[in-house]
């Protein structure tokens, strides 16, 4: 992998969104990944709909949580994602109003990435932003900088938040992952969370995945 990489500098990442008081992080993580994949395949960055997943992914539980693996399958079955403008986020479950002719991006399948952070970094640099999940305990109190909580505050087996990994690098000698969150721009550093890279902190390596677009 290169020493550092940031997909924000290459136009593959849309602006920070806000999930509101709704446990729909899984939808934001997955749509963020597909936005990046679609950009890399088609050269056009779209802002895609999370509400479509909240309403129409019947396997997951909308604001009560969901799994990226299910969301990829749901998108495949539905036929794709509408844009944010066509199917706007409301932050609560509604009846599904997905319209096939409004599909703006589709996926062909999905894959699970290695649990080795070095391999994840190489995959990210080569293929685009990655859907990941982590233990978010420290995130409630995070303001800025590279977060590296003790393991007792960040049990890697207690994963409870899905986010989008958009890059990595080093800041003052501290290696980090750049993580796009979905709690609005007034969270962390302009909506981003920076997590220590290299110790599998907070279980960041446990659930890396991506959609595949042919």
């Amino acid at each position, binding site marked *: 992998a290169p020493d550092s990489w940031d997909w924000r500098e290459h136009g593959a990442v849309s602006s920070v969104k806000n999930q509101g008081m709704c*446990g729909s*992080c899984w939808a934001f993580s997955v749509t963020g990944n597909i936005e990046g994949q679609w950009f890399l395949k088609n050269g056009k960055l779209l802002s895609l709909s999370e509400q479509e997943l909240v309403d129409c992914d019947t396997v*997951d539980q909308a604001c009560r949580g969901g*799994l990226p693996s299910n969301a990829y399958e749901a998108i495949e079955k539905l036929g794709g994602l509408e844009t944010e403008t066509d199917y706007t986020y409301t932050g609560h479950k509604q009846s599904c109003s997905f319209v096939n002719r409004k599909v703006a991006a589709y996926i062909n399948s999905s894959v699970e990435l290695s649990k080795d952070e070095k391999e994840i970094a190489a995959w990210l640099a080569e293929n685009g932003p990655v859907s990941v999940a982590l233990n978010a*305990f420290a995130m409630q*109190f995070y303001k800025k900088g590279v977060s590296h909580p003790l393991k007792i505050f960040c049990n890697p087996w207690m994963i*409870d938040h899905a986010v989008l990994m958009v890059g990595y690098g080093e800041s003052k000698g501290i290696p980090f992952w750049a993580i796009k969150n979905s709690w609005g721009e007034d*969270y962390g550093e302009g909506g981003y969370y920076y997590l220590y890279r290299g110790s599998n902190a907070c279980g960041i390596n446990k659930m890396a995945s991506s959609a595949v677009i042919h």
Partner: protein
Amino acid sequence: CEDPNQPLGSPVQLGESEPGVKKILEFTEERYNLGSNAMHRRKISRFISVTRQMLKGIRYTIKVEVSNTQCKKSSMVRSCDFYPESHKLETELCMFEVWDVTLQGNLTLLKQNCQPKVIARTEEFINVDIEFGNDTFEFMRLVLEFKHFLKKFNKVYSSREETERRVVIFYENLKTAETLQSLDQGSAEYGVTKFSDLTVEEFQTMYLNPLLNQWTLHSPMKPAAPAQRP
């Protein structure tokens, strides 16, 4: 200029509908608007109390909430509607002192003390019984931080009880953030965030995703081919 030897009369509570009170409230509202730089006329949105005290004249102490209306000051319309909910944050909590020295209804506004309701409410914490021991500095720091937090994130609570509950949670969260800060192995800064008035459980329920931790629900996915290009 009061004669200090003059015995003070006892203050008497007046109801909103008692004779004379309407006139006093109208006078107060008029004077408030004359002294304000706001573009829109503001009106009394909530009556809290009026007391009358017989001294060398009559002293009225008025406590009310004042909110923005949709009428510009320049307009001559008398009955103006309040702004909808979103503008409630601009509501002020005011205390006025109005004197009728002549006892003939010639009113004079002597004192006016208004502050945003959001901040005014936090003054109530002064009475909150939190275990601070003798650490006054720690307590004052908490009050200031909480006031700043309320203002920055536009937080308003429904009752005094709720406010008290939130300030205790806020205090606990400050301590947690300090612990995280002292033990962090990176360069992160932890502290007050927009989630600082939520318990960890509330935060998990509102913003996190418990299903991710249900490993038995995870369906297997195809492994990705490793990166290959230099």
